[in-house]
């Protein structure tokens, strides 16, 4: 099973996770910029974070033979803080980078006027930089948040096939399916979506435009739930090719619209050579 995790926050994960992910078949991933649990208070902490997403984190992933890409944006929660909104003028610098394959996570948290403005402004950036957009749907008031997000996407001028709405569930999937946007599902141990429920959704809605991710981060989450979903699909009668489509070809198709995916095999020499720094060298 080859796996492309289209949404995982590796900054919060250990090298043990990278090792287990590689063993489970993860060969590539996308790390969306999001909030870090602790609110930020200045542009500098955003740019340092973005630097890590295009610098240190891909380097760390490469030690395990995993291609790391990212998405860049001001997330909806912190869009409400004027100190954080000052990062918006800096975003174009990062949207020009090789490893940046979409604008995201954008969308709504509490559906405030500030979030409206920042969401629309960043979809406009996706349009000018010819990138896809990753839209986070809110935890609270999710159904109305999803509906409102689809309206903002429609007004943005971005073609629906360049947009994914993420963290969907049984209640929100239908209207996103109808919109022509991609559908993202975050498989979590307790919340959001589970492997058996995911399999039921795939049965009902088909495999087209479907993205399955672990969204693993600093909270209770599991980077191997993509693989577990693949296993659950097989157990339910889906074929190996179906699993490959959902866990590899679909994310490649979606993020491939950026023209920036690098899925070449990582050279063994680089991995060994660079491995020293993760092993910490020393005595």
């Amino acid at each position, binding site marked *: 099973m080859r796996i492309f995790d289209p949404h995982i926050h590796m900054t919060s994960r250990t090298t043990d996770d990278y090792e287990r992910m590689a063993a489970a078949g993860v060969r590539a991933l996308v790390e969306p910029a999001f909030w870090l649990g602790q609110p930020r208070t200045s542009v500098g902490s955003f*740019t340092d974070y973005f*630097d890590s997403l*295009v*610098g*240190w984190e*891909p*380097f760390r992933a490469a030690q395990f033979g995993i291609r790391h890409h990212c998405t860049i944006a001001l997330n909806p929660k912190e869009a409400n803080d004027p100190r954080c909104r000052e990062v918006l003028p800096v975003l*174009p*610098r*990062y949207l*020009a*980078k*090789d*490893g940046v394959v979409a604008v995201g996570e954008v969308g709504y948290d509490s559906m405030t006027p500030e979030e409206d403005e920042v969401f629309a402004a960043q979809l406009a950036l996706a349009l000018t930089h010819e990138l896809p957009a990753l839209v986070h749907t809110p935890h609270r008031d999710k159904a109305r948040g999803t509906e409102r997000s689809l309206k903002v996407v429609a007004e943005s001028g971005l073609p629906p096939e360049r947009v994914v709405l993420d963290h969907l569930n049984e209640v929100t999937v239908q209207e996103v399916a109808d919109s022509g946007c991609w559908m993202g599902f975050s498989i979590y141990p307790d919340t959001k979506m589970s492997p058996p429920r995911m399999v039921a959704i795939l049965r009902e809605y088909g495999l087209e435009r479907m993205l399955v991710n672990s969204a693993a981060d600093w909270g209770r989450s599991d980077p191997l739930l993509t693989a577990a979903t693949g296993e659950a699909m097989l157990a339910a009668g889906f074929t190996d090719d179906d699993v490959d489509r959902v866990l590899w070809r679909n994310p490649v198709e979606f993020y491939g619209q950026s*023209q*920036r995916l690098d899925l070449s095999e990582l050279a063994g020499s680089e991995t060994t*050579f*660079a*491995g*020293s*720094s993760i092993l910490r*060298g*020393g*005595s």
Partner: protein
Amino acid sequence: MIDSLRAALSRTAAPPADSWLAASTARVAAEPGAIGVLLPAAGRHCGRAPLADPPGWRADDAARVLLLAALPLRGAALAEQVRTLYRYGDADEKRAVLRALPWLDVGDRCADLLHDALRTNDTRLVAAAMGSYAAHLDDSAWRQGVLKCVFMGIPLSVVDGLGERADGELATMLAGLAAERQAAGRAMPEDATALLHRLTTG
């Protein structure tokens, strides 16, 4: 150096890379601010294939160095532009800036970029910081850079002027690391052992 880089890139990259680079260097020469979007795009247009020479360089490194060399700026103004590009560069751009420093008219104004690179744990940046521009590091920082290469398993061949600059103090530091490694039952890289031997017996 700049001409040989251009030739090496032409031999490696596909023809569209040549025309992109010609147009982009011309644009940078006329409009220096444009380098902010052209430098990150170099790998997408010129590829990342290894060059025959210099060893360890890739096509995108050469393209980025040529873009930097096309900036119509000198001295403090050039240094400021270069520092901004490094600040906002991804790891590949940072490496290219470090590699370009010896060929840019910035004097010692960008030596702090080497310190930044040497503070990272990214072998690509640490290695790039120990090229010929490291002549602007003071002896203490330079020795720490050499030792960090040994510690991280970076071949000492990346260190410019190693034979001339290695001194008794570096030998003492290498001997200390060798003693720690021996106590832990771990090996020293062969090139470091050879250097220590030369410094202590030569």
